[in-house]
């Protein structure tokens, strides 16, 4: 029983409108149907509820629709106030990557279950393309020719390898050189050269990634 001041309202009776609207979950439906099977007064009540539902729908359907000028008003505001896409989306478009991850999606989800692997030079270098062709292996980074934007990135020490891999995939980035002094790696991002302003924006976006300790524009942009 639900109570409302001194009034008692039967729980099943209270659910009948949602039952009639098809807006209950399976367990509630089962509960209502079990009660309906043994309580004739509830069945009578449901018939009234269904009447109310039908007339409410009929009444709403009779109300028509807004005029075309309403959309024109909305469109005029949208034209007059173009939204600036979020920085990450603009960069994604710029470097030809798909939607970039929201920061919170990267932030330590499942960290308790995951084995934390500190980013060390060997682990990062395992992601470098081998001069001898594909395949894992340690090789010194000798600055292969980068075609995208060049940036220097130092990663947070607690970064996991899977996070690093996701970061590189999301930004269409490759590690092309490192580590340098200060733990910096040179990354090639995307597959086209960017203007100075675009590189600045890219560096700002990379700096905001949770696994990035610091990002700087690289040489050769």
């Amino acid at each position: 029983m639900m109570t409302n001041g001194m009034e008692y309202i039967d729980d099943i009776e209270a659910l009948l409108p949602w039952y009639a609207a098809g807006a209950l979950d399976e367990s509630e439906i089962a509960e209502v149907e079990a009660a309906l099977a043994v309580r004739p007064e509830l069945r009578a009540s449901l018939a009234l509820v269904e009447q109310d539902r039908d007339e409410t729908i009929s009444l709403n359907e009779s109300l028509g629709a807004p005029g075309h000028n309403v959309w024109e008003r909305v469109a005029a505001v949208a034209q007059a106030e173009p939204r600036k896409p979020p920085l990450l989306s603009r960069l994604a478009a710029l470097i030809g990557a798909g939607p970039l991850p929201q920061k919170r999606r990267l932030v330590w989800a499942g960290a308790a279950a995951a084995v934390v692997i500190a980013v060390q030079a060997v682990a990062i270098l395992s992601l470098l393309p081998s001069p001898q062709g594909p395949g894992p292996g340690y090789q010194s980074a000798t600055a292969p020719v980068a075609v995208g934007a060049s940036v220097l990135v130092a990663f947070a020490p607690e970064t996991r390898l899977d996070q690093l891999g996701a970061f590189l995939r999301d930004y269409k980035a490759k590690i092309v050189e490192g580590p340098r002094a200060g733990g910096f790696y040179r990354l090639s991002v995307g597959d086209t050269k960017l203007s100075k302003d675009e590189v600045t924006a890219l560096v700002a976006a990379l700096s905001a990634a949770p696994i990035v300790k610091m990002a700087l524009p690289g040489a050769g942009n």
Partner: protein
Amino acid sequence: MATETDDDLLRRIRSGDQLALKTLYGRHHVKIFRFAMRLLRSESSAEDVVSEVFVDVWRNATNFEGRSEASTWLLAIARNKAFSMLRKTKREDELDEGAVAEIEDDSDTPEVTLQKKNKGDLLRALLAQLSPPHREVMDLVYYHDKTVEEVALIVGAPEGTVKTRMFHARKRLSELAKAAGLDRGWP
């Protein structure tokens, strides 16, 4: 090609995509209009609510957190705007929200509605007479197919209150019907 979800459209709107805004408008403007019409009883005011809702969507799409359906979010915005207009119409300095909430429309009395052709006409006339909170809870459940939780989100009340309000809306409808000569035998 699979139809884009409302969430997909809102994501595009956040990126400044006006076509996505138009598609979202196309999906929801009629229901938003009718919801506002039922509360405000004025076509031009309901149209104002629709335009303001979608302008808000354009400006504040980032506020949509995806914890509910987009239609629930839109109805909640529409409700706020409609109640704000109701308050202005009823002279805010004289009436608080509670008072506005309780006002029933007496433009079509039970005696007049008795003359309606049949029970359906009578019930629709009585539904139109309910107070705004009673009208909206009935509309949200029966016409907009909203769950208890969704109605609670839209009207900003606890779920228990929503159930109680619906019960009282039904009870009030039966009282109005009885006064108009139609005894429904409930409650």
